[in-house]
């Protein structure tokens, strides 16, 4: 991208984008890199060392990191583009299913029925042969491509219809929710060929390495961390480009942007699709670490939870999304262990308190003095928010 190259040309521009010049980006990258290095070292310590981290913790943090990637993708469309997607878990789950399909194919003839061609659930449901949409998933590069393409295509098609017909605001949120709900129901169907309610599970290898070995877990953790970093830098560079400014402009005054002559629909579509791909990547990293993907991941609640991470962390700041995802999930792990009854109260109260009192989230609480307290304006179309002009 030209502004990246511009960075090295050293154009003396006061107002041009300075990707790594932004201190928050730099600092974020450094902290994340440090974590990626330090945490595996902690794992290598002897188990009785006070800083020792077991496989459980590594896997747990690795899972949080994939959530953080999902949060980034939600923030990209919600925080910067003003589209509240209640269906991002669908992209996450699709990425996860693609990875799950690859992992299923890796099992080969080591399934319980020992069938070299079909996954166990297909043997059991009397599938004669592998359905066409499973073809090619033996190959990792193909699967990797699909991790991006499948969610991306869905987002593209969905967004193309939705943005072209100016579905926005609340309406868009509701149909994204309907989309993920329809997918949830569809994936529950055993006829779909994705294992129904049980989903895909009992994975054994990834790229020939056993998923049960510690080193693979650490490897997955490191890859998740690096992916988070890469996605963060990608989003940051996108947002410092003029397209990023355009996104904020669309969020704040979509009509005005149209009158400036920008193809608002296409810009939205591009960013929405990119965001879906990032969510898909997150899902693909999530599955080998937790060991199962099932239709429950499509549940509307999951999408809303991802939105809440972003809201709590502070929408419209990338690091806020990451802080939100890590913080809420750490709290969830702790809470459901200590006070399982109280978890929903706490989560529910968080929603209310954050929207009422902290419209800019933790990030706003920490760094919000410079800006006006006024929250980011929505760009909604509910009948009553419309102003009647004289």
């Amino acid at each position, binding site marked *: 991208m030209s502004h990246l190259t511009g960075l090295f040309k050293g154009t003396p521009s006061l107002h041009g984008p300075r990707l790594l010049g932004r201190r928050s980006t730099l600092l974020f990258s450094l902290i994340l890199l440090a974590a990626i290095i330090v945490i595996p070292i902690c794992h290598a310590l002897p188990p009785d060392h006070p800083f020792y981290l077991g496989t459980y913790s590594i896997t747990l943090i690795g899972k949080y990191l994939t959530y953080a990637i999902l949060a980034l993708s939600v923030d990209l469309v919600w925080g910067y583009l003003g589209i509240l997607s209640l269906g991002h878990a669908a992209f996450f789950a699709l990425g996860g299913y693609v990875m799950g399909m690859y992992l299923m194919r890796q099992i080969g003839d080591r399934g319980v029925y020992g069938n070299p061609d079909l996954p166990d659930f297909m043997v059991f449901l009397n599938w004669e042969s592998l359905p066409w949409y499973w073809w090619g998933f033996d190959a990792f590069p193909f699967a990797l491509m699909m991790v991006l393409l499948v969610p991306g295509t869905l987002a593209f098609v969905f967004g193309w219809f939705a943005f072209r017909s100016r579905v926005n605001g609340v309406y868009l949120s509701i149909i994204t929710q309907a989309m993920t709900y329809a997918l949830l129901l569809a994936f529950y169907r*055993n006829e779909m060929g994705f294992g129904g309610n049980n989903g895909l599970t009992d994975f054994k290898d990834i790229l020939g390495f056993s998923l049960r070995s510690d080193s693979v877990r650490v490897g997955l953790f490191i890859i998740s961390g690096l992916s988070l970093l890469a996605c963060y830098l990608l989003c940051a560079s996108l947002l410092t480009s003029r397209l990023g400014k355009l996104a904020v402009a669309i969020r704040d005054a979509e009509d005005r942007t149209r009158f400036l002559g920008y193809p608002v629909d296409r810009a939205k579509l591009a960013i929405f699709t990119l965001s879906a791909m990032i969510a898909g990547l997150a899902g693909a990293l999530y599955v080998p670490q937790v060991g199962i993907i099932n239709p429950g991941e499509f549940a509307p609640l999951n999408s809303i939870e991802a939105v809440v991470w972003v809201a709590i962390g502070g929408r419209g700041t990338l690091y806020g999304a990451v802080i939100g995802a890590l913080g809420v999930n750490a709290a969830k792990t702790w809470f459901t262990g200590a006070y399982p009854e109280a978890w929903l109260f706490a989560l529910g109260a968080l929603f209310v308190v954050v929207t009422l009192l902290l419209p800019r989230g933790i990030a706003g609480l920490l760094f919000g003095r410079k800006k006006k307290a006024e929250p980011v304006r929505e760009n909604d179309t509910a009948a009553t928010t419309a102003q009647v002009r004289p």
Partner: protein
Amino acid sequence: MHMTTTTETKRSTAFGLASAAIIAGSLSSVAAHAQDDTIKIGVLHSLSGTMAISETTLKDTMLMLIDQQNANGGVLGKQLEAVVVDPASDWPLFAEKARELIEVEGVAVTFGAWTSVSRKSVLPVLEELNSPMFYPVQYEGEESSRNVYYTGAAPNQQAIPAVDYLARDLGVERWVLAGTDYVYPRTTNKILEAYLSAKGVASEDIMINYTPFGHSDWQSIVSEIQSFGSEGKKTAVVSTINGDANVPFYKELGNQGISAEDIPVVAFSVGEEELSGFDTSPLVGHLAAWNYFMSVESDVNDEFIDTWLDFIGDENRVTNDPMEAHYIGFNMWVKAVEKAGTVDADAVADAIIGVSVPNLTGGYSTMMPNHHITKPVLIGEIQDDGQFEIVWETSGLVAGDAWSDYLDSSKNLIASWRAPLSCGNYDVTTGVCSGQNLE
């Protein structure tokens, strides 16, 4: 966005601190290791989310059993300590919490899971860390893991005897196999379909219907069942409908005027606990097949019920089949540990096969080499007080069959975790042991 440098620096510093705090926070969840003077027992049942309805009771059952055992001096001279976690009806969370129990808490054994998918989620973790789990719910079979003990019913311990009863005692000739669309009903119905056709039931006399989870509008399906049942042959519904879909289903049956005498419904997932959420008066006479009913008349059951009502402090609570499964499983584990003299997973695994403990119906249940247990099969009719009247039971105990003989995919498979076979899915025709025990 343009910030002055000072703000930017402050911002960055604060951000750094925040992230560090969060990472540190997530690490601090790693707890200390197990103390030596107690034996830890993991309880892995959802206490929140959709499955909390069923699973909370099992958590309480385990706490009661552990209390009782401790009052009787514990095991191997040590007290037992329950470690309860909440996987919140979230399937990936089951695997995570199982790892926490075994790796971080160092539990000797886990009692838990309800749905098949939660068991499937936990399975790889159990096998990786070689830790035993007792699974207390009736399930679809087609599985036998080195680390799982299946104390609920396999299909041959519930579905097949129920169908036998309907065909023989009620003269049923036409069958509706209605289920929720997931693996347990799919498997059970496949097994039943094969079993029925082996018994000479024509395929037009079998109707199979699947509905989504929580299906609430049963008008069309019940009407279809009614017309299917009006062909002059005695018709019955074999229901593997799950959870919340049952209430609207039975209500619709009642509303469309289908009584148990016209078209009896035999359910495999409706027990006392579920009935307590129903108005049972329109359901009287419909059936359920289980290995235990609260209404079983035996001294050991009376005692169990009294202890339970005492423990939970509510006269109106009920007992049910999965609770009995935990009762049996827990006692088997205790007996095996005492036999082995250690809680070591491998030693217990060797010791537990063949262990017999009393079940609540007055007999004994034995752990078979395929990690399933022997149980009687009971058929009960729903009464208006939410209890079951036992109308039939097997003359002896039925051993759980991990691999159904009625499915093409599994009829050649057997499981035995006894040396020298030590295999969960051994193909008797090819002599190959495939599957999960291959590393």
